[in-house]
Every structure is written in C-alpha cells, then in structure tokens.
C-alpha cells in the first residue's frame, strides 16, 4: 500500500472499529465493514453503494464531511444514506468530548485500529515492529477487564479487540484515570513523563510497548484522532 492508501484504509478501519465499540447492531455494523476496491477507493460494505476515494476519506477524517462516489451511491441510494447516517453517528460520538469510560474506550479502540493498520502496512512501522508478536492490554486502573487489546498471533496480522482475550498479555498498560487515558489517546501526554509520575503504569515486556507506542505516535501524527 502507498502512503495515502494506508491512511485512508486506517480511517475506514477506525470508523468500523468505532461502530464495534458503539455496539451498533451486527447487521448495520457489517454493512459498513470496509473493503479495498482498488488502490484508490474503499467501499463501506460489500454492496459498493458507499464508496470513497482515498483522498475523500482523508478529507472526511480532516473536516468531517466529504462526498462519496456518486455513481456507486446512485445504485442503492437509500442504503447508502443509511450508511452515511451510521458514519455520521460514529463521527459525532468521536467528537463528543465527554469524560467517560465509554468515550475513553471509543478513542482508544479507534486509535489502536489506526495503529494496527500502520503496524501491518506502513514500511517504517513494519520495520520497527519486526517479528514481535503478543498481546498488549489497556486497562483503566482497578478494572478487572481491559478496555481494549492489540494483539498479533503467529502468522497473523496486528488486530484490535474490545473483548477480553484468554491468553496472558505480553504487556499491560493501566491508565490512572479516564482523563489520563483520553489525553493519552489524543497524544497530549508525554509517555515517559506519565510513566514516571504514575499517570499510567506499564508492566511486562516493555520493548514491545516502546515499539507500539512509537508507531502509535507516527500514526497519530499522520492521522490525529479527531482530525485536524
């Protein structure tokens, strides 16, 4: 994938992940599962009624609005409008800016999904992560279950889940508070300073978290979580 395609794919995957976190019903959620049509276009769902060029997906991410490909949209306009509404719902939830655990989980999962795309597709991130694998779990202090996890199994790709995994994590990050978690997701905190002052704790295999953290910052630089 070329750079613009990676970014556009990360945007579309993140939107889909947003739908997962918001617990949109499975039928509608699947209807916006992104698919790469070609190196310039992504379709939300496999019926191709809602298709964006990479450029327009990036514009959608930046300014919150952009035009889908009209030709595809006209094939099933009613379905396409339903999907546009879903996308708008996810977009407005992301911009809600509320200090809640649900909002933290949404930002975290969406950011991790974009990072996973970079870990799988971006040349620099791939070279940094190398052959590392395992589970990275993100917690809110005191919670028994993780907010979200990023993991890679042997022979697979980096994947994000919001359901708890049964295997032991290679590294665990625990945010002291919702506020710290949200600021971390938005790239507003220095990880070294936060770790030193206990705003979050990291246990386990630190080198994996160092690499993922660096790639997450590359991703955040390319695609600020709330657009520009």
């Amino acid at each position, binding site marked *: 994938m070329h750079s613009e395609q990676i970014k556009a794919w990360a945007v579309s995957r993140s939107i889909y992940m947003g739908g997962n976190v918001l617990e949109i019903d499975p039928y509608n959620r699947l209807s916006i599962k992104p698919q790469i049509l070609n190196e310039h276009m992504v379709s939300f769902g496999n019926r191709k009624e809602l298709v964006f060029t990479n450029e327009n997906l990036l514009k959608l991410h930046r300014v919150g609005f952009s035009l889908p490909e009209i030709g595809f949209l006209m094939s099933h306009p009613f379905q396409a409008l339903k999907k546009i509404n879903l996308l708008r719902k996810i977009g407005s939830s992301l911009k809600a800016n509320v200090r809640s655990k649900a909002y933290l989980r949404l930002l975290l999962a969406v950011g991790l999904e974009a990072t996973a795309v970079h870990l799988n597709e971006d040349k620099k991130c791939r070279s*940094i992560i190398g052959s590392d694998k*395992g589970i990275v779990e993100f917690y809110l202090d005191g919670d028994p279950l993780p907010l979200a996890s990023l993991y890679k199994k042997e022979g697979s790709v980096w994947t994000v889940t919001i359901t708890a995994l049964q295997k*032991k*994590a*290679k*590294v665990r990050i625990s945010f002291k508070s919702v506020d710290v978690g949200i600021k971390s997701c938005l790239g507003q905190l*220095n*990880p*070294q*300073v936060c*770790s*030193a*002052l*206990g705003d979050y*704790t*990291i*246990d*386990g*295999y*630190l*080198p994996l978290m*160092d*690499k993922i953290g*660096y790639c997450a910052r590359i991703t955040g630089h390319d695609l600020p979580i709330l657009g520009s």
Partner: protein
Amino acid sequence: MRSRSNSDQLFKRAASVIPGGTYGHLSPASSLPRHFAHFCSSGKGVYFHDVDQNEWMDFMCAYGAVIHGYQNPIIESAVEKQRSVGTVFNHPHEVSIELAEKLTQLVDFASWSVFAKNGSDLTTWSIRVAREHTKRTFVVKARGAYHGVDAWCDPGMGGRIESDRADILEFEWNDLEQLEGIFKARKDQIAAVILTPYHHAAFAPSVMPEEGFWAGVRNLCHKNGTILVLDDVRAGWRLHEKGSHKYFGFSPDMTVYSKALGNGYAISACVGIPELKNAASEVFLTGSCWSDAVAMRAALTSLEICEKDSVASLVLDKGKYFCSGLENLALEFNFKLRMTGPTSMPYPWFDGDDNLYRIQNFCQIASKYGLFFHPHHNWFISNAHDQVSLDKALALARSSFEEMQNEL
C-alpha cells in the same frame, strides 16, 4: 512504598525543561518508575541516597560507571589534587601520556591509546579507523547488542533514516556459521566486526561465548583482513585486570573502554594494535573537554587500584558468593532464578518469565527493602561490596522472596 514526594516534585520540574524529564538509560520509564527514585542526592561506598533521604544498597553502580564504590577515597584524593591545578587547558596535561602508557602496559596487544568521554564516542570512531585502514565499508555486529547512542547502533527508533544502517550487518551471537556466511556474501567488503566480550542485551538473559566462538571470530577476521573491535565499555575491568579479552583468551585489534575506567568520571579510551596507529591518526577525533585531566587522573588511579588489588578477580568472587546465595534463596521459595552472565555483572532471569512480570515484581518488592535491583539490565558488583553488605542484601532478598511467595 518508600517516600518519594521530593523525587516527584523534582521530576515535574525537570519535565518542564528537559525532554521526557530524564532521558536515555536513566529514564524512569525503562526501570521501575514508581518504585525507584527519580533523583539521587549522594553516594558513598555501596550505598546511595535519593532526594527523599531514602538509603539504597546499590547493585547497579551508576549502570557500571563505578567499580570501586561511590567516592572511593584514594581516587577522590588524586582527583582533588589534580583539580587544584586545573583540568582543561590549551594543551593536554601530562597525565594523558601517563594514562596512555598505563593502558598500553596493561593491555597486551595495545601500542597506542586515545581518549574521549563516552563509550559511543569511541565505538563509532573505532569502526571509522577500521574503514580507514581496510578501505572497506561494511561493519558486522551481533543482533541486539548495544554499542552506543549513534544512529548506526542505537536501540531507539526516533531520528533514524534508512541509510544510517545500510552498511551494518548483523548475525546471532554465537552463530559462527552465520558470521561466516556474511563474510562469504560480502567478500573483501567487511571493515570491522564489533562485539562485546559476551552478549549482554537488555531485557534478556546474558549469553556467554560458546567454546570456540572467539577463536572462530578471530580466525574469520584474520582470514578476511577484517578488524576485530572489542566493545569492552560495560565489562572492562570487571572480568580481568588486563581487559576482558584475557578472560576469554583471544586478541582483538582494538578495544574500547569506558564506564568503570573512570570510576564515575567521564572518560573513554580506545586502544589498538601498532598496525592501526596510522589509520587512527587519520580519523579526526576531538572534543572540547576530552583532554580532561581530572577524569584522566581518576582513570589512572582507578586502573592502578584495579591492578594492585586484582579488583576484577575480587568482584568476580564477590559476585559468585552473592549470585549463588540469591539463586539458593530463590529455590528455597520455589522460584527458579538464574543469575546469567559473569558473576561480577549478573543478569537475573526467572525461568519461564519471558514477559518479565516476575522479575519486575521481585525488584519492586526488593525496592521496599532498599535494594536497588534492576529488572531489565545486568547488575554490577563493585569492590566496595563486602561480606557484610552482601549478607545484608541476601537477608533482605530473603524477605523479598518470602513476600513474593505470599502474594501468589
């Protein structure tokens, strides 16, 4: 948990004017940020104090920069005398010759010596000397080995471009076949092989050279006209009074020393064989304060003590006592702990603890008892450790194991 309010306050102050608050290997993020202090106030012998007046028994020795204990009186007295007449001038001080003479007398293959401040200054310079001498490009290193902060070898990720490592080739430590394959693939193109005396990667158990490894490396370098550089920055003077190559029975072409060399004063040295002296004089080397007479005096005195008291043998013996004591204690509590690497600088490894949770837990508990045990880096035994301090450390370690077992 020990008090840490001053530490945190200072760290917040630091973070406003220093990127990350503290950087590099001293960054709290790479150790136990909520268990270790962020700033020290003083040190003496095997103990140091943090800014909250907590006393710590040290097993890191300023990450290896101290071998005779903090504020060794003989070294400090020599340093004070030197300081009273000055340290950096328009010309080098005579002590630079004395130190070069001492190093070339101690290190059997060496006929010359140069000085800088940091290990990296000279690991990087040494591969340039090898390139100058051989007129070749490529450098071979062991995968995961640390040789410093420069772009060709640093363990970080930022500020790097692809070309930084285009001429650096890697093989797995102890895999002579792989190294031989690299020599075959890059025939007459390899300027240098740079290796540490044994493999002391962070976040992993240390690996000693297998039987025949060093002889094999030496032979391959010799056959291919490649310079063998020994990075003895971390292990130097801790394995043998005349350099770590003597401990493992081989002879490199250049060796870089730092850390213990100055017992806490910033100095590094590179020594080499006569055949490389001309190339060494062609590769530019300088730094405004590198002719620091105080650091050189500290290094000279430190080397004299090392030689006179056979310090390397002493720290190996002390380490042996401590490591076997700790391993036996662990077993008493049903933990399988191995102190890997040489006993003077052991890396602790609990079997099956690949994700490091157990060692982190153990070091966290030990920190409550004032033991500075690092979970991710090899430890260091200094010559200031004695029977009393080691026994005290073992007694505190016993309490730590007991507490860890109770937590299970």
